[in-house]
């Protein structure tokens, strides 16, 4: 799962750093991900994991790090 998340970030996150090797707690917004890019990340994650983030998950905090994204994806998969 982490690999898929990192692939999505590499393709859509527009990070100033390498999404393949950053720490899972690194703040993605502080690493250059714009809110515009985060929307694309969100869409790509929904497609990759066949999920739909609920309204309450659509927060900056859900997408602030790889760990946060993983938690969010797992929560939506269980829902």
């Amino acid at each position, binding site marked *: 799962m982490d690999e898929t998340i990192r692939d999505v970030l590499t393709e859509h996150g527009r990070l100033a750093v390498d999404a393949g090797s950053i720490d899972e707690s690194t703040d993605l*917004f502080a690493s250059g991900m714009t*809110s515009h890019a985060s929307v694309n990340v969100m869409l790509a994650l929904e497609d990759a994991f066949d999920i739909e983030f609920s309204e309450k998950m*659509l927060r900056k905090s859900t997408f602030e790090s790889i760990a946060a994204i993983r938690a969010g994806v797992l929560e939506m998969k269980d829902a």
Partner: protein
Amino acid sequence: MISITEEAPVVSGSSDVARRMARIADEISGPAADEVDQQGRFPSETISALRAEGLLSALVPRSLGGMGASYSDLSQGLVSMGRQCASSAMVVAMHHIQVASLVRHGRNDLLRNYMVELVDRQYLLASATTEVGTGGDVGSSVCAVDVADGTFRLEKQAPVISYGRFADGILATARRSADSPENDQVLALCRPLELELEQVGEWNALGFRGTCSPGFILRASGDAAAILDDPYGDVSTQTMLPVAHILWSSLWLGIASAAIDRARRFVQAEARKRPGMTPAAALRLADATALYQQFADLLRCSVARFEDIQDDPDRLSALGFAIAMNSLKVSSSTLVVDVVRQSMVICGLASYRMDTPYSLGRHLRDSIGASLMVNNDRIMGNNAQMLLVHRGE
């Protein structure tokens, strides 16, 4: 995080704020409005009058010596001021947007002490959020604060700083450090003595001429604690954007209100000439009045929408709220032009001429600025992006 939770606004005390702003608007801003517009000069008499009554710190909580006014009261006050002089009202609105950001996102001792000082000295605050080279996107910066030994330095090429020459302090956006990406921004309070403004060009615009908004090269330094505690992204989402859209819409409603007042008086004067005959323009007045009501009620609901959740960062950061506040800006900046134009059709040449009690030239010119200051297309583009994932209310 938001910190203005110490006390609830005092209803009687703060509606007083709206009344006092209305009185200053009627007695001082109105009589000077044409001169401010024609000469493109700063509305100093309005700012002095607000200062004398301590109204520049209306939004500062009582615990810090301010009035603890509510956003709805300030909104009402700005409607009254926009009715008389849109330039004055825009300066006042922009100042309060900066104060709101400080009050809600400045928690360290330096910033708290500065707010006490602001109450005492009645400082006027300006903003430098746009920058040469970012294509008008305030969510990214080229310049960066350089922090060393507890001191920050900043140089910024600002294409616009409204009333920069007349401000006692400027809140400027910049990247957090020289290594930060363009969207990792902070907001730094730049204060006199450590602030140098080199003016670039003039401000000779179609409307809002009294806001005196040329470009500047801003050079500032100061204690690193003058950088607001929260990242600019949070300040923008939770405070600057919603408060700006509410306060701007308030003064635009004031412009619309002045226009429809003239239209109503025009139709009523016609009706008095021929009692028994409903003037042809009365039907248009009914149309324009319905439009005006849409505008007024939209603003009232939007202020309530913000006030209901103003201390809840999570709900303030929700997509639905951001979309609603963006829609408010786009709708009200469109409605103000519509109401002014319809009022001109009602008053006819009397509104087109510059020297009648029904003149609406200044109102029309000012109203057109509304959709251009932060271009509506950019705002709608942001909403379009958010709507790709928003799930509805």
